[in-house]
Each structure stands twice: as C-alpha cells, then as structure tokens.
C-alpha cells in the first residue's frame, strides 16, 4: 500500500476532502503545517518594527491507499487543490509496508 502526503492551502481542504470522498476514500488524516517555498510570506508591523514571516500556513493531508488507486488519487488531489497560484503545494507518495486498524487488528486493505 502507499501513503499519499499532500501539502495544500488551508482553504482548499474542504474541496480536497470532498473530492477524495467522491473518489471513494473513506478516511484521511489532516494536520496543520507551515510551508516555506516560492510563495512569499507576509510582513507584520509592531510599533514601527517590521517582521517578515517566511512561513505560510498550509494543511498536510495524509491518505493511505491501495497501490492501484495512487495515481488516480494524486490526480484527484491536484485537481481539487490547485488554484494556479504559487503556493498550491506538493504531493509525495511513499511506500507503506503494513497498515493496521487498531480497533480490529485488521491488516492491509481490510484496514482501510
């Protein structure tokens, strides 16, 4: 099985989630991250002192899925997350050697 990790813009999470459900995904895990990249951050001013903040708030979405679905899901994420503006994010896929559902101990695809 594979783990798809996507870094997306926070306000896009809803669309990504909807699209993944569309695509038949029954579960995913999201978390708050700070991204650094081409998209520049912003400037803050406190009592005349300027601070540049390089990090941009992003959301990490993780989906474990069957090998067969990876390509399709990556495309689903790309389509639902992109705004064509710098900072849309990245997706990377890594191999998962075992996957377990804690409640039942089920392994592999059954645990999905």
């Amino acid at each position: 099985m594979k783990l798809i990790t996507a870094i997306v813009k926070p306000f896009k999470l809803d669309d990504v989630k909807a699209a993944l459900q569309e695509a038949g995904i029954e579960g995913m895990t999201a978390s708050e991250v700070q991204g650094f990249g081409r998209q520049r951050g912003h400037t803050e001013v406190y009592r005349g002192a300027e601070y540049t903040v390089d990090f941009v708030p992003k959301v990490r979405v993780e989906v474990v899925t069957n090998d067969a679905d990876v390509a399709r899901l990556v495309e689903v994420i790309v389509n639902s997350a992109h705004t064509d503006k710098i900072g849309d994010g990245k997706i990377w896929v890594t191999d998962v050697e075992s996957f377990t559902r804690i409640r039942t101990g089920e392994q592999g695809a059954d645990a999905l």
Partner: protein
Amino acid sequence: MTEIDTGNTAWVLASAALVLFMTPGLAFFYSGMVRSKHVLGMLMQNFFSMGLVSVLWVLVGFSLAFGDGGGWIGNFDFAGLKDLATIENLPGYTGDFALTIPVLAFVAYQMMFAVITPALITGATADRLKFAGYTAFLALWLVLVYSPVAHWVFSPNGWLFKRGALDFAGGTVVHINAGIAALVLVLVIGKRRGWPREAMPPHSLPLTLLGTGILWFGWFGFNAGSALGANGLAAQAFINTHMAAAAAMLGWLVVERIKGGHATTLGAASGAVAGLVAITPCAGFVGGIAPLAIGAIAGVVCFLAIQLKFKLGYDDSLDVIAVHLVGGIVGSLLLGLFSDKAVNSLGADGIFFGGSELMIDQLVAVGATVLFSGVVSFIIAKLVDVTIGLRVTPEQETEGLDLSQHAEVAYQLGGVPR
C-alpha cells in the same frame, strides 16, 4: 441655576466611565464571534471610534446635538467645547430638566453614547470592511446622522422630544439608529465570501462572554446614568435594566433549547444583550415586573429575528439587525404599552395605563429614525464606497483583515516559530 449636587455628579461621572468601558466591551463581544484572522480588524473598528468620534464630538458633534437651534438640529455655539465649562445650563435644560451636575460632566457622558453607537454597526459588516473607508463613514455618520437624531430625541428642544416621544437612554438614538445603518451598510457592501455556505464559527466564545460581562456592567451607567442623578429614578432604571437582561437571557435560551435542542453560551450572551437593548428606551419609565415582560419578549423576538437574514439573504455577520434594530423597535414600542407616569412624572402613560397618544409618538419616533438614518446612511455609504471603497479585495478578505488592514496577527501561541 440649580445647585450642583456632588452625589448626582459622582453618579454621572461614574456612569460616563461605565459607558466608555462598554465600547471595549462591545469590541470583545464582537471580536470573539469572528474567525481568528479577522479579530484585530473588529477590535480596531471599535477602539478607533473611541478616538475619532470623541474628537469630532468635542469639535462639532455635541454642539450640533445640544446646541440651541430649533427642533431639527443644534448649532455651532458649543463647537470646541466653547463656553461649556462656564455656562449655567444647556438650551432647554431648565425647570424639570435643569442639570444638577457640571455641564462638562453631561458633555462627557453624552460623548460616550456617541462613541459606541456607530461602533455597534461594525458587527454587521464584520470580516470585509475596508479600514480606510470605515474611518470616512464613521466621521460622516457621526456628524450627519447621529448628532441630528440625538438632537431630535434627547434635547428638550428636539422635535421628537417636544412631541412627547420617550427614549430614556437611546432606544431610537442608539440602537434603532445604528441598526438601520447596519442594514443599509450590509446591503451596500454585500455578503462575505462563502456566506452562508461556509461555516464561520466564533473563534473565542470566552472573549465574547467577556464582552457580555462588560456590556452588562456598563449598561447600568448607560441606563441608570440617564437619570442624570443618584435618585429613586436612577434606582428604578438600574433594577429595570438588570431585570430585562435576565429575563431576556431566559427567553432566548428557552426558545433556543426548544428549537435547537441546546441552551448555548452564545445564546445566553445574545439574549442578555437583546434584553439590555430593549429596556434602554424604557428604563426610566416602567415599573413593577414590566421589565421582565419586556426582556422576555425581546429575548424571544430577537432570537427569531436572526432567521430573517437567511430568509431575505442579507449577510448581517453578527446579527446587529436582529438584536439592535429589532430589539430597539421592540423596546420602543413596548414602552407605548408599559409606560407608567407613576414611575416617572416626566413620562407618559402607555396603553396599559390608559394612555393612547404615547404609542403614536413612539411609532413616529421609530419611523422617523428608520427613515432618516436609513436614507442618509445609504447616501454616505455609497459616497464612501465609490470614492475610498468600503470593502476589501477578495484576496484581503481571504487573508483576513488583521494582516491585510493592520499588518498584525492576533495570536501567536507558539508552536512553529515563524
């Protein structure tokens, strides 16, 4: 001139401080309800009114509201506080209305009302108002809308006052006035992006509850201070204010529980405020347990009035219209029923006490305020919108008012150092 009474002065000065404290209270009440990226925008709009409106009030506002100038508007005699430190009494404030406090105490007290009234509007336009445009609207609205309406209703020379319309502490001048302006403004600037599709939950209800506590506390100055003395009338207005807030909280929570299954903290806060709004015009004119009735009715009606925005499709972000416009009207009209001359000889009897004219006067006062404030607010809003602009860009709205308007972030609670 009537002697200055130290006790009355002490109470009015304390009341003025309490009313000033209400504007920060309002800022917290509102900003707790917005999302975390718009918090400072909301706080700033309220605090800024303490700055700009106060200066304008001193320069021209007070003079236009309480200067000698017939029924429609004052004049510029008192511009820049001219003569007010030494003058014996204000135009119209004679006989029963003669002040027993220093005129400057009255000026300061009234100033706090002028500060909070336009601030009330900002709850409706939350999350999308452009700061530069807001400052212009604020200045124009204070001078062109607030000052005249205050003159009509509060000044003994005002045409509504003379006509017999009653407004003890600002049901029309403050709440209906701000409420209708809020409606006009949201129609001019339009809905928040994503509303009503997206959920836009409060970012900090404790902050909203803090605001509620401060508002309730300050409202004693607002209503009981309007007796302009520390006397039986002030005591009556004081207890009436509290009773209405309490009953309205219960009223709101009961309907909420019945309709939604839960009695919420935000509901308790909202209900209390609705009751405080409704009792504002009545505070010094009703007695017995009438305030309980007024409060309970206001709590229920204002809760139901929230649905209007979904039905009619205008985006009143924090329900200023349901609470202040509707609540203000409810209070002003219920006064036409519950007003009791036995409580305040300078008042009038409502329908329940055999008086029939009062209700007419109240309707006229409500109508005149809605009409005048509605029209002039609309003109000002349009004017500012086409010139400076009243709404932020979509990018700024997505980024949030805090960063886009003020280059600040409300909270930095650690985690990843940025």
